[in-house]
């Protein structure tokens, strides 16, 4: 050491001071209040409203919107809050399987603060069919965290949203329109709502009632030509007819609508930052039927279950009645993050995993099909 450090004239005073540090801390700790430690904190409480986690929800009203669509309103255990456009998973036991599906919330964010939330569901698959035919007032369900980024982002999005809705894809935009109308969100919203016929339009009356200087609705019927409705599909011409200047496109609908809209939007030259697309659940894949065996470690237990090569790994786990995490069913949310010990799988669509997940053999059962027997470690739900 090239020099001698001294703060005080006599170095030993610095030494004495150093020696006092421990007694001083000891005294400070002993002087602390004997009152019980807080059991909770305000920030953590608010976090619990924003992210309530799984909770039970009682079905309190069922309204039939169209021939194949119903809106289910639930009373939740706890108040919560979300951003218009987000989805929740709704689940229950069906014939011994733990089944859940993500549905966009169709009610306004404010209503959730009073423990009310509505989901609008089209009868089109296993779980929605079950709901349509069986769910009745008083039934209990499990409701997940409000999730997803299919929301208006004031910091980056244009002040005008062009919403492209196909069929039951109207639900997040109905929530968004209510949020704009009640002042929760502040932006212009032009909804292009595509359906086959006028009778297939969900929330027709409700949407018309929300029309204002900020909210416009353009109905686009593919199978009908009628006064007051656009005819055909939602494309570049229609967009240019109704919106101008800077706008952000948000779309929610079936894959066929996305394929068409993608081609149309290409004509408009919109950058990626101006287009958002809600993901759809991973469906079945078109391969020959084959059965593989899954060896599944959950907690301290190991299960052996069959898996159909045409269905996702998650579906196989649910069919076996295993209690496993499921949320977006599209590979995006990461909630079902599991470790593959051995075996091969194919991911449906783009690989949305983190880089290190691929490196260390983690995958998302919700969007992966088994190509061989698999051994995997899945966290409990």
């Amino acid at each position, binding site marked *: 050491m090239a020099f001698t450090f001294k703060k005080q004239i006599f170095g030993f005073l610095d030494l004495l001071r150093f020696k006092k540090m421990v007694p001083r801390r000891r005294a400070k700790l002993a002087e602390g209040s*004997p009152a019980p430690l807080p059991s909770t904190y305000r920030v953590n409480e608010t976090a619990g409203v924003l992210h309530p986690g799984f909770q039970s929800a009682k079905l309190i009203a069922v309204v039939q919107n169209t021939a194949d669509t119903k809106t289910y309103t639930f009373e939740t255990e706890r108040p919560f809050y979300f951003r218009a456009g987000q989805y929740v998973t709704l689940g229950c036991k069906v014939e011994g399987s733990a089944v859940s599906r993500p549905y966009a919330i169709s009610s306004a964010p404010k209503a959730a603060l009073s423990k009310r939330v509505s989901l609008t569901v089209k009868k089109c698959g296993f779980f929605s069919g079950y709901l349509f035919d069986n769910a009745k007032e008083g039934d209990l369900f499990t409701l997940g965290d409000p999730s997803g980024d299919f929301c208006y982002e004031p910091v980056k999005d244009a002040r005008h949203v062009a919403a492209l809705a196909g069929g039951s894809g109207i639900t997040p935009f109905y929530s968004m329109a209510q949020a704009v109308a009640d002042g929760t969100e502040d932006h212009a919203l032009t909804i292009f709502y595509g359906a086959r016929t006028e009778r297939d339009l969900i929330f027709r009356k409700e949407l018309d009632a929300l029309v204002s200087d900020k909210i416009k609705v353009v109905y686009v019927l593919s199978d009908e030509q009628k006064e007051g409705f656009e005819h055909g599909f939602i494309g570049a011409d229609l967009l240019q007819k109704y919106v101008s200047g800077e706008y952000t496109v948000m779309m929610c609908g079936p894959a066929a609508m996305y394929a068409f809209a993608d081609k149309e939007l290409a004509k408009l030259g919109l950058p990626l930052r101006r287009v958002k697309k809600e993901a759809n659940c991973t469906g079945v894949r078109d391969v020959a039927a084959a059965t593989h065996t899954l060896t599944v470690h959950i907690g301290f237990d190991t299960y052996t279950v069959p898996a159909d090569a045409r269905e996702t790994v998650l579906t196989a786990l649910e069919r076996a009645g295993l209690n496993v995490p499921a949320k977006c069913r599209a590979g995006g949310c990461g909630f079902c993050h599991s470790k593959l010990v051995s075996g091969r799988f194919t991911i449906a669509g783009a690989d949305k995993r983190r880089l290190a997940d691929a490196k260390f053999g983690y995958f998302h059962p919700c969007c992966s099909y088994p190509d061989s027997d698999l051994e995997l470690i899945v966290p409990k739900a």
Partner: protein
Amino acid sequence: MKQYDAVVIGAGNGGLVAAIRLLQGGARTLLVEKHNLPGGFATSFRRGRFEFEASLHELNDFGPADNAGDVRDLFDALGVTDKIDWLQIPEAYRVLSRAEKLDATMPFGVQAFIDKMEQYVPGSRPSMTKFFDLAEEVRLAQAYSSAVNGNTDSKVMVGKYGNFVRAGSYSVNEVLAALKMPKKARDILNAYWCYLGAHCDDLSFVHYASMVNRYIKRGASMPKMRSHEISLALTERIRELGGDVLFNTEAVKILTDERDGGVAGVVLDDGTQIATRHVVANCAPHLVFGKMMDRVPESEIRATNARKFSGRGFTMFLGLDADADELGVQNHNYFLYDTMDTAAQYDRMRTIRDNSVQATVCLNRAYPECSPKGTCMMYFTTLYMSDDWGNVTAEDYFKTKDYVANKMIDRFEQDTGARLRGHIEEISVATPMTYARYCGHPEGVIYGYESQYWDGLMPRLQMMAEDHKVRGLRFAGGYAMRLSGYSSAYFSGDISGRQTVGDIKKEG
């Protein structure tokens, strides 16, 4: 009932390392984590075509293989270094204060740092040289202290590390004044203070010097696949060593033994009881003593109540659709301050309205391939020095978040001349509520207990033995004896893991 030699609660940086140390010491170990991922803050997330780093700006004290720092040595000992692809950060930092017309870009390397400082502040060389001499002695003294688990021999301390002991009770500013460091040099040198979260009139010199020295001497590192790569590598190692890991599993209770009040078991969120006599808690003593244990000694209640929460975190993540050159983002690591008076700055960081400080990183400046060609990623972080976010209701939450995000973008554009607006493709914002949600920390605190003068690094290390009051219960992570930050949390896991191995061996 399931039985383990030790249960580690929380798979944060400290918990992961503690679990490996326990397994290496032959202990049958269970690691439980309430989130579905390991790492705590050390993780990443995908948005569109970007994968964002959740928290790590740069890893301190790792260094390249030929200039290995303590963290690399630790990772070597844990057996994980080679599981991770590393890169070196090109320069230390750029500190900017528009109000005080300060703009300095500092390099890594002690000599280069001193030389650059001399250019900015002529005449600073002697005091800067002394600073690094002193800082190196701090490092050596700490290495000695760690080697003897805090039971230092005062003769050795005074004899071998006299300057360390004489400087050891003072704040950063007190020591720098004694070194006669010119004010502007102090301002530039103190830029890292927000990484520790206590201002330089209160922050222990030893703690600060130790960190600055580790950064400047070894440079800083990053795992290429973000900190998630480290967290998964550590998890992989735990499984290789035969450890059990349960995600989505919260430890809700620590059971105590009626005879000695020590650890008897752990209850998981599904009611499963685990028998164990040893717990390493990688979470806040406020949570452990506040809700996880039924019988807590009054001395622990008092000690916990006496401590002060450090900063609550806020980070904005941007994915931009133009590269850093096009946007005018020149550097990897920026500190933007209103004032270089750290105590005044600390005061302004109490409220959402007054806080506009930011530590900003553009990862592409260290690793151009971290996002697709023609894009870049940036993170903007600040701390709140009071519970002001506790005043924000759920209904006001999203607007408040946007208010701060906009302020951060404006500030960065004004101070640096870069242009970000019009290029934001993805945005994500983490607030104290987000940190509270994922890691359970009270008030969304991200730095554990504040490194205030009386509760700083030195007295915590010296009191390690007497702070251990409940038999079988040790702590790791930012609330523990090494304080917060990645490297500190890893070391705390190393210490508590090894000490618990010792506890188990003593029991026979």
